[in-house]
């Protein structure tokens, strides 16, 4: 359980880091928080020639708010979403998922960009970024480009980042008046990989759902948007018997949209049932949360 040999390099600037990635490409691996990469090194599942430690590159952990978005630097530690009042207020869905990312101690070190670039299909942050419709900024010596969350997660452990690209910023749509959010997951023990999870962002206007996005995690080879399920909620009030009916229908469409796999821990049928239950939960959370906000006159 010791890492294989590699060359360790620790650039101080973004230019230096991008130059190293341009030179070494496929042979290099970016070391951010190390919560996933170092276990993979220790278990010899990864054998990069060069390890580019970006922990001392300046300016990669900043938080900026502009135009209804919050941009967080890739090296922001996951614990910031739990602790920063500014982030909790502006990004309630991200804050809601944060306690489920690994453990208290690993969140001190794990980074937002590392988690997104790792593209684990069971990751909380990929699911939330997708549900909110956010994006990331990828930089290389060839230039910079924005990648929408929908296009970022290709399949389990594989993102759309090129080998010479570094994920530098994450753009999160911030909470706005009328919107409510919900997050729920089921794991065998707190902090374990989820068997299933769901996230919802919902806008309520004139007593009905005006807009809604429902995301599902850990039940396919990447996080999914359950578009059809969300569609049946639009224009509906979620109160009363008709509301219950709509939520149940959305939940069963979400369960059908999931593509879960079977393993030692849970069957396909059980995972689908979880998707249905968790979807119901997050849709209701989103609906009530949106109401709460309206009552308070918006965030």
């Amino acid at each position, binding site marked *: 359980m010791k890492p*294989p040999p*590699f060359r360790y390099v620790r650039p101080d600037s973004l230019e230096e880091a991008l130059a190293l990635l341009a030179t070494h490409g496929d042979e290099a691996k970016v070391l951010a928080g190390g919560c996933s990469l170092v276990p993979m090194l220790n278990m010899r599942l990864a054998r990069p020639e060069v390890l580019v430690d970006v922990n001392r590159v300046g300016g990669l952990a900043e938080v900026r708010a502009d135009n209804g978005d919050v941009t967080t630097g890739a090296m922001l530690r996951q614990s910031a979403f739990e602790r920063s009042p500014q982030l909790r207020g502006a990004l309630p869905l991200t804050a809601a998922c944060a306690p489920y990312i690994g453990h208290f101690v690993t969140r001190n*070190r794990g980074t937002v960009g590392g988690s997104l670039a790792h593209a684990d299909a069971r990751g909380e942050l990929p699911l939330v970024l997708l549900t909110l419709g956010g994006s990331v900024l990828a930089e290389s010596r060839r230039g910079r480009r924005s990648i929408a969350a929908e296009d970022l997660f290709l399949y389990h452990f594989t993102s759309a980042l090129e080998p010479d690209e570094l994920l530098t910023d994450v753009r999160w749509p911030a909470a706005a008046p009328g919107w409510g959010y919900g997050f729920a997951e089921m794991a065998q023990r707190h902090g374990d990989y989820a068997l299933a999870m769901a996230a919802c962002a919902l806008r309520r206007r004139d007593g009905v759902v005006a807009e809604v996005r429902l995301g599902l995690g850990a039940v396919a080879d990447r996080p999914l948007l359950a578009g059809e399920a969300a569609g049946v909620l639009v224009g509906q009030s979620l109160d009363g018997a008709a509301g219950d009916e709509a939520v149940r229908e959305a939940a069963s469409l979400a369960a059908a949209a999931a593509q879960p796999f079977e393993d030692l821990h849970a069957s396909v049928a059980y995972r689908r049932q979880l998707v249905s239950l968790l979807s119901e939960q997050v849709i209701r959370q989103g609906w009530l949360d949106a109401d709460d906000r309206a009552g308070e006159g918006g965030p």
Partner: protein
Amino acid sequence: MSDHREIAVTVNGRRYREAASDRMLLSDFLRQRLGLTGTHVGCEHGVCGSCTVHLEGAAVRSCLLLAAQADGTELRTVEGLASGDRLHPLQEAFREHFALQCGFCTPGILMAALDFLAHNPTPTRREIAEMLSGHLCRCTGYAPIIDAIAAVAGTGTTPEVTS
């Protein structure tokens, strides 16, 4: 490949400078190079929590860090908790509540709990249990550990420790 380099760290207020290969884990550096064997190593992939130490005041898994990454930083390990023969209040609480048997998991839990209490001085038992989800104890059944942490929570004896 895998060159050796000098690593300078301050651990528990004392300065050290020792050579380590690039691929040496911080947990091994603490134990093998600095002789600080209070930090335990269980799983070496971030699951058991026994290797938890403080890096620049924050609890981290030392098996998920390279020694080279800690160069120039300040660390605190379980050896830094007691002052002389006087146990830290949290250590004292562990003793009073029978929160350890073999003690393998204890250093990691102590270091994690101190950082946890610094951010959440009056946690609920449930919050303590969630924090403990990152730590495997094969002996005590966790309830006494929760008792010990709850006993010092809110007493104001902990936050200064992590600074």
